[in-house]
């Protein structure tokens, strides 16, 4: 394999500006976004936000990459056994070596979440477990009233892709998904709907950074 030549920051910035225009580039570069959970949703959201040129990401997950994650999460065979934070950072640096990443390899709780995501104006909820989803959302909405949350609910199975939607359900809470297809119903988690929902979340983050608050 040929060795990758590291482009300068100016070269990468210039390429992004050509694609996204200068005002969009500047807004993205200044943004601080947090991602809670780096599974099927979080790993895909992180890749998309990095491609958008988001300047600062806080990535939090306690887990390691497992073979069973490869069906939908943005990891490769070489990452199996690695911390998800590190495996994802390695890939994001391949997209933009100048991105500012803060990694937290710990279990995110209602107690530590406000501290972990202190620097972020927007936080993506990307957990698997419904109790953990609710705990994070309650903790951030209650303790950090200035922050926007983009959460997910209902992405399991292979129901219609067209049922995945983004809704603004509270002043500071956006919810992506079909709102009903859960793993509790015995549905499997699969790559297309996980990526669809992640893309809804990433697009809502993009819109919020650009000052658009409607889904």
């Amino acid at each position, binding site marked *: 394999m040929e060795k990758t030549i590291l482009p300068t920051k100016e070269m990468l910035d210039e390429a992004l500006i050509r694609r996204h225009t200068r005002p969009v580039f500047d807004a993205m570069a200044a943004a601080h976004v947090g991602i809670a959970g780096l599974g099927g949703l979080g790993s895909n959201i992180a890749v998309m936000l990095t491609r958008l040129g988001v300047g600062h990401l806080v990535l939090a997950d306690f887990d390691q990459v497992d073979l069973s994650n490869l069906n939908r999460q943005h990891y490769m065979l070489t990452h199996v056994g690695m911390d998800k934070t590190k495996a994802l950072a390695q890939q994001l640096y391949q997209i933009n070596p100048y991105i500012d990443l803060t990694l937290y390899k710990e279990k995110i709780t209602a107690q530590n979440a406000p501290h972990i995501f202190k620097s972020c104006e927007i936080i993506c909820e990307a957990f698997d477990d419904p109790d953990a989803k609710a705990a994070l*959302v309650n903790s951030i909405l209650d303790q950090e009233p200035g922050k926007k949350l983009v959460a997910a609910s209902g992405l399991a199975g292979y129901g219609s892709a067209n049922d995945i939607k983004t809704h603004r359900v509270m002043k500071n809470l956006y919810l992506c998904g079909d709102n009903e297809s859960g793993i509790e119903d015995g549905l499997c988690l699969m790559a297309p709907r996980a990526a669809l929902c992640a893309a809804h979340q990433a697009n809502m983050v993009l819109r919020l950074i650009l000052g658009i608050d409607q889904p």
Partner: protein
Amino acid sequence: MKVNGKIYSLAQPLSLKDFLEEKGFNSDRVAVELNGDIIPKGAYETTMLSDADTLEVVHFVGGG
């Protein structure tokens, strides 16, 4: 009372905790906004609902 955009009549004064139970919600898996303010979990039992209220209940299912 308005619940998730739909009109709902309260037969008697009801706490938020009892309302969620009656409607079949698992209170560990919801976030609740009452008249624009998020209600902390610890206050579900003491929060009384009235017909003038606007309630948003967001319920989470698993998968990510």
